[in-house]
C-alpha cells in the first residue's frame, strides 16, 4: 500500500468528528471517499496531510509513519493536498502560486520543466500567468489549485471536492484531468459529494456516514449497490 490509514479518530474539542476510519490507497490507483454533508470526508483528508492531529490510530505512507508530522513536513514526503474551496493565494499571480507549490524543491531545471507541463495541461493558466489569482473564474482557480499541488511533484494527490460549485462542462474537464494525471502514475484520493462522478473515476471507494465507515468496495460494485444508489446517486 502507498498510504495506509488505520482506525483513525479525530476530535474537534469534545466533538468526535470521525471514528475508527481506515483507508488504504494502492499505488497508482484512484480511491474515493464519498458521503453527505458533515460525514467527515474533509476531516479524513486533513488528517492524512497532517492538518489535524489524530486522537487514535496510525497513518503510514510508503511504509513510514507520518501521523505525527506537521502539514509542511507531510508535503516533503510526497503528499500534495488540493484543499476544499481551492485555497489559492488570492493576491499572488498565477505563476507565483504555481512556483510556491514547488517551495520545497531544489531541482531548478526540473521545476521549470514541471511548470511547462502544468502550462501544457492547463493552457488557461499560461494565458493568465501574470494575472492575480483572485481575478480568475472558479474553474480556473480549481485548475490552479491542482497545478500548484502538482508542482510539488507528489506521489499521492489528495483532492477535496474539486467539482464543488463548477459548471458541468468544467467538472467534465476536471474529471478528465484527474484521469490523465492518474494515468501518468500519480495515485489519487478523491473526496466528493458528487458520488456519480467519484464512482466513475475511482477504482475503490469508501462511504462515510456521520463520522463512521459505512461501506467500502470496488467503485463499480458500490455503483450497483442498492443503498448507495438510493442515498448518494438519487436513483
Amino acid at each position, binding site marked *: 500500500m502507498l498510504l495506509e490509514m488505520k482506525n483513525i479518530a479525530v476530535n474537534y474539542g469534545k466533538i468526535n468528528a470521525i471514528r475508527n476510519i481506515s483507508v488504504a490507497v494502492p499505488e497508482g490507483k484512484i480511491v474515493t471517499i464519498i458521503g453527505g454533508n458533515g460525514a467527515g470526508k474533509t476531516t479524513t483528508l486533513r488528517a492524512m496531510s497532517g492538518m489535524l492531529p489524530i486522537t487514535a490510530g496510525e497513518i503510514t505512507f510508503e511504509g513510514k509513519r507520518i501521523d505525527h508530522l506537521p502539514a*509542511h513536513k507531510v508535503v516533503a514526503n510526497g503528499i500534495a*493536498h488540493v484543499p476544499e474551496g481551492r485555497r489559492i*493565494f488570492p493576491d*499572488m499571480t498565477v505563476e507565483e502560486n504555481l*512556483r510556491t*507549490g514547488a517551495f520545497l524543491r531544489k531541482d531548478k531545471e526540473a521545476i521549470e520543466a514541471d511548470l511547462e507541463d502544468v502550462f501544457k495541461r492547463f493552457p488557461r493558466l499560461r494565458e493568465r500567468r501574470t494575472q492575480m489569482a483572485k481575478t480568475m473564474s472558479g474553474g480556473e482557480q480549481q485548475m490552479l489549485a491542482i497545478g500548484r499541488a502538482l508542482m510539488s511533484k507528489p506521489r499521492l494527490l489528495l483532492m477535496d471536492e474539486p467539482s464543488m460549485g463548477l459548471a458541468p462542462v468544467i467538472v467534465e474537464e476536471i474529471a478528465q484531468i484527474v484521469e490523465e494525471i492518474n494515468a501518468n502514475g500519480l495515485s489519487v484520493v478523491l473526496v466528493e459529494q458528487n458520488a456519480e462522478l467519484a464512482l466513475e473515476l475511482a477504482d475503490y471507494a469508501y462511504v462515510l456516514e456521520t463520522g463512521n465507515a459505512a461501506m467500502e468496495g470496488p467503485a463499480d460494485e458500490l455503483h450497483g449497490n442498492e443503498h448507495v444508489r438510493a442515498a448518494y446517486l438519487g436513483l
Partner: protein
Amino acid sequence: MLDLLAQTGLNAVYAASYISLVAVGLVLIFGVMGVINFAHGELFMAGAYAIVALYAGLNVPFFLAVAAGLLFVGCLGLLMEKALFRPLKDNPLGGLVASIGFLMILQALAVMGFGVRMVHIPPVTQEVIAFSEKVRLPVARLYVIIAAIVLLSALWYFLKRTKFGWALRASAQDPEAAALQGISITQTARIAMFIGAGLAGIAGALTAPLVSVNPHMGHSVIVTAFIVIIVGGVGSLEGAIVASVAYALVHTFVTTFWDGVLADIVGLSLMLLVLIVKPTGLFGSADRA
C-alpha cells in the same frame, strides 16, 4: 514661498521615511502573524536606546551601532514570537494583550537602565546640504531617507522575487494553504518578526540623534500604527506596504504643511473611507476574517 514649500517637502519626506519603516514593519507582522503588535513603538524606542548605549555611551562608531541596534531589536522580535505570539496563537486577543505587557516591560527596562529624562546624543554629523539659502537638508536626515528607500526597496524585492518572500506572502494570505505547500508557518513568522522588529529598530536607531530619546517616545507611534493597519490591512502584504508608505507620506505632509491635529483628522477620514469602500480592510482578506 517656493523655498518654504521645498523645505517643508524635505521635512515631510524625512518624517515619512522613518514612519514608513515603523509602519511597514507593523503591517508585515500583522499580515503574517495576525496580531497587532502594540509594543511596536517600544521596539522603535529600543532601537534608539541601542544608540544611547553603544554610540553615546561606549563610543562605538555610529553605523556599527545602528547595525547592532537593528540586530538587537530584530532579536527582540524573535523573542516576542517565541515567548508570546506562538504560545498564544490560538487565542485571538492573546497576542495583542501580551504585546501590551511586553510594551510595559520594555518601558520599565528603559527607565531602569537610562532614567526617565531625555538623553543627549552627540550629533553624528553637522554637515548640511544647502540647496539654496533657505532650503537645507541636514546629512543626518539624509541618512534616514536613504535607509528608508534602500530598506523598503530591498523588502519589496524580497517579497516579489524570492522564494522566501513568496512564502511570507502566502502565509499572510492563507496560512493553512501555505503549510500545504511545505512552508513552515513558524519559520515565516520568525522571518516576519525579525524583519518587522528590525525595521522599527533601525528607524529608532537612525533617528535617535535627531529626536528626544525617552522611555515614552514609542507612544506617538501607536495611533499612526493603528490607522496604518486598518488602511493597509487589505490582504496582500505589498498592498499593505504601499498603503502604509502612502499613509505616512500623507500624514507627515499634512502635519508639516498644516498641523498634527488636522493630519490625524485626515488620517482618520482616510481610514473611514477605506472601511466604507472595503470593509475587509479591517482584518485583512475576506477569507481570513
